[in-house]
């Protein structure tokens, strides 16, 4: 029998039993819709991660220093939070919270305490005093290690402020770096524009290359320039949301004046909207000023900057990390720096995302199996019901192959119809799920995979009943009532 004629018979049978077909395929409908959604959620999650980390370069290393609160030597090297050896892989839980603290991205899992107490630390804020301090502390540290007998026990008791010199030092000494920058953040009182009372904003001191490094794009104006930094100009670039909050719109904000700590800063640029980010400075909410300007007018030396360097080759990240440590150890022998690389953060995020996707796929598979068993069940009943029909077909010369194919094709069509309905449904419910804040990236691939799954389900679970039907003995089938 021609295949096209078999398909026609299948069509006739299915049309005759529309409602039954629909009921039979419910399992597959649900399965297909689930698969499409699962894939969409998986892709959504991936896109989310990519978006959240888009301000990070894969080869980026964030270097920062956290001073331990513990002043005495009661805790040994292994204890929290001072020791962080080999901290290249950063846990996902490390989401900097910019509402309270004022830190640039820091990779460490511990929460450093940078509360108001830091104002009591060294105040002159230039490099000579720092190096003096360093000398003092290294002596102190040496005594320490002598006392406790472990040179690797770095207590981070010193007050170290990373500086542009450290950045230059690392950049020139560590091979394989393409870029470097340094940033710090601070909370400052702001007014201007539509703000009646002062509001607290994250102000980030950055160099001119920060925008490029963090993949920030401008909506109006330009990012801060090197000249701004050298002249310690009172200029700023506003994050998109910050500009809207302060001035009502980005357009309005541009070329306007914002008061930071009572000093006027002219807005020379507004950033385009960046969206939420998992790591680093939340650019939409922040105000960016030249690095030196902030030190001069706002913070003094009372900052804990983050140096960011970019490794030319992402694969060299571990070597680069080690080299950075070596270079820093030369300047600060008793300090342990927090070095986090963006790549492993992304990896961790992607990994947890993958786990979720796998779980959902397992779920969808179970739905498909149940759907398949449903089809098999109905087909068995159908073979029973249509035994006489099979007998007639055999009597007039229908071969085993014809009958097997007809029933198989019926199963396949039922499951394919189910698959198509399922895919359509998934596209209908995806806006609802998106409304529930589940990010979904619908795709043709997902739909195709769902259809393939449906077909396979139909074929696998349709085979046995079809085979049974084809094996019926003609006389017996014919005489059955």
């Amino acid at each position: 029998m021609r295949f096209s004629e078999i398909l026609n018979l299948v069509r006739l049978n299915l049309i005759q039993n529309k409602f039954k077909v629909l009921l039979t395929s419910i399992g597959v409908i649900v399965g297909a819709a689930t698969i499409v959604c699962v894939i969409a959620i998986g892709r959504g999650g991936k896109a989310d991660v990519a978006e959240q980390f888009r301000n990070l370069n894969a080869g980026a290393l964030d270097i920062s220093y956290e001073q331990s609160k513990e002043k005495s030597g009661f805790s040994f090297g292994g204890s929290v939070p001072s020791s962080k050896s080999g901290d290249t892989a950063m846990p996902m839980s490390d989401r900097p919270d910019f509402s309270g603290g004022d830190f640039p991205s820091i990779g460490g899992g511990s929460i450093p305490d940078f509360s108001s107490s830091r104002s009591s630390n060294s105040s002159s804020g230039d490099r000579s005093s720092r190096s003096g301090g360093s000398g003092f502390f290294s002596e102190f540290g040496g005594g320490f290690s002598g006392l406790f007998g472990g040179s690797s026990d770095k207590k981070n008791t010193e007050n170290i402020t990373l500086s542009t010199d450290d950045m230059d030092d690392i950049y020139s000494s560590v091979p394989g770096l393409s870029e470097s920058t340094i940033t710090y953040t601070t909370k400052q009182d702001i007014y201007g524009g539509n703000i009646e009372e002062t509001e607290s904003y994250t102000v980030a001191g950055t160099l001119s290359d920060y925008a490029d490094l963090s993949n920030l794009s401008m909506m109006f104006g330009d990012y801060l320039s090197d000249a701004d930094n050298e002249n310690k100009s009172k200029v700023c670039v506003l994050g998109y949301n910050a500009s809207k909050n302060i001035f009502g719109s980005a357009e309005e904000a541009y070329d306007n004046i914002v008061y930071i700590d009572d000093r006027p800063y002219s807005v020379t640029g507004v950033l385009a909207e960046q969206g939420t980010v998992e790591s680093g400075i939340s650019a939409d909410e922040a105000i960016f000023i030249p690095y030196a300007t902030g030190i001069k007018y706002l913070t003094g030396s009372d900052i804990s900057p983050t140096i960011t360097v970019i490794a030319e080759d992402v694969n060299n990240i571990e070597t680069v990390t080690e080299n950075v440590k070596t270079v820093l150890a030369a300047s600060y022998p008793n300090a342990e720096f927090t070095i986090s690389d963006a790549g492993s953060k992304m990896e961790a995020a992607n990994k947890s995302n993958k786990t979720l996707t796998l779980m959902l796929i397992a779920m969808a598979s179970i739905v498909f199996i149940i759907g398949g068993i449903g089809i098999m069940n109905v087909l068995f009943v159908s073979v029973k019901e249509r035994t006489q029909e099979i007998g007639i077909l055999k009597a007039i010369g229908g071969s085993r192959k014809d009958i097997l194919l007809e029933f198989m094709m019926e199963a396949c069509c039922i499951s394919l119809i189910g698959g198509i309905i399922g895919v359509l449904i998934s596209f209908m419910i995806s806006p609802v799920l998106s409304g529930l804040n589940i990010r979904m990236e619908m795709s043709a691939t997902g739909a195709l995979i769902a259809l393939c799954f449906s077909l396979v389900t139909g074929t696998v679970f349709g085979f046995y009943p079809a085979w049974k039907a084809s094996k019926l003995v003609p006389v017996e089938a014919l005489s059955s009532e």
Partner: protein
Amino acid sequence: MGTEQIISMKNVCKSYKMGTERLSVLKNIDFSVDKGEFTAILGPSGSGKSTLMNIIGCMDTLDNGTYALNGIPIHQTKEKELTSIRNHEIGFIFQNYHLIPTYTVMQNIIMPLLMRGHDRKSAETDCREIIDMLGLSERIQHKPSELSGGQRQRVAIARALCSKPSLLLADEPTGALDQSSGTEVLRLFTKLHEMGNTIVMITHDMNVAKWAQRTVRIVDGEMFEDKTN
């Protein structure tokens, strides 16, 4: 001419297992049909008529003896080939029509041709003449359930005829019909016989058997009388 044998059965036995006992349904049947004959097999209920017809129709196997259809040794043939033989050599007409309820009249009629690998168009063209002859042209798009018993039996006859078989096998073709539609079908059989078809008809009714050219009696699985009308 006229002596070409369509059916040639020798010593055919068939029995069914009933628990521990064997129920012998056909006992040493010798039966032959020449080409162009219209034969009636007459016998009471339970005598083994249907069993015999299933064997003649290559739908059932025989325990003993030999059976040749058109010279093909059926008792040695495998199911796969039997399927093809059923399709090419035999046109079945059943007591309760055995039409497929989900198909239209046309679809039912052309099924044997489709199974042979013909396409729909040519199959429909090939059947046109037979459909006209049986007066079904108005009904081809109907479902069997929309037809009278007589019409349904004519559809079944059309299906049996369209494959141009060498043997028409009818098991109680009038059994479910009233007097007049039954007569109509039998008149049709006579006409088909005159056209040169070989027909074997099974019946328990003397009056129906009278329409045939030749009557064979079967009682308790034994064929014991063979007379020409």
